[in-house]
């Protein structure tokens, strides 16, 4: 069974700190790994990673994928209170024979940034 595990489940830090969120996976037919930020309801897209070792960066956020060790990390530097949210990791899998695909999500990491 496809599985995505995130750690930690919850993290509380002070504004200005740097945080690293982890995502490990065990899936068949890996296509890509995605990170989302969920503040209230709709998860919003952060990154899509398909190749190992290539860092994706957007402002203070960055992410990298290791397809050999089957994990990804999401880094946030100089955290701000607006970064408080649930961060979701998802792996896109495919079932080539059926042309099917889906996202398998981890449990999420609840990040709280205190002023």
């Amino acid at each position: 069974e496809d599985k995505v595990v995130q750690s930690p489940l919850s993290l509380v830090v002070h504004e200005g700190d740097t945080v690293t969120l982890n995502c490990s996976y065990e899936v068949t037919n890996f296509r890509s790994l995605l990170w989302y930020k969920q503040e209230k309801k709709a998860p919003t897209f952060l990154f899509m990673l398909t190749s190992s070792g290539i860092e994706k960066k957007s402002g203070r956020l960055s992410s990298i994928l290791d397809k050999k060790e089957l994990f990804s990390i999401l880094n946030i530097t100089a955290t701000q209170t607006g970064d408080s949210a649930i961060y979701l990791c998802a792996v896109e899998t495919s079932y080539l024979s059926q042309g099917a695909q889906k996202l398998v999500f981890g449990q999420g990491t609840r990040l709280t940034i205190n002023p």
Partner: protein
Amino acid sequence: EAGVTQSPTHLIKTRGQQATLRCSPISGHTSVYWYQQALGLGLQFLLWYDEGEERNRGNFPPRFSGRQFPNYSSELNVNALELEDSALYLCASILGRWGYTFGSGTRLTVV
């Protein structure tokens, strides 16, 4: 461009009743995914519709069903509601295999 829209925003039902949730994808998107997010848990895959057909379903009982209409909007039906069906139900649409965009969800409460 309008995003993925879901209705209703909130829904309160009693145990045993049926719930119908609706999703309108981004214009031009032909695939719709449904996910359940119970409190404290990650998103669990429910159903995938593409071009009007059910393509894949997650590990949920047959009480969870749905359909996709010719305009690519979709409906999720949950029959014989149970207390543990209380959750946020999220719909996402994609065009091809890129760019999953989520709606704001329907919060279903079963009492």
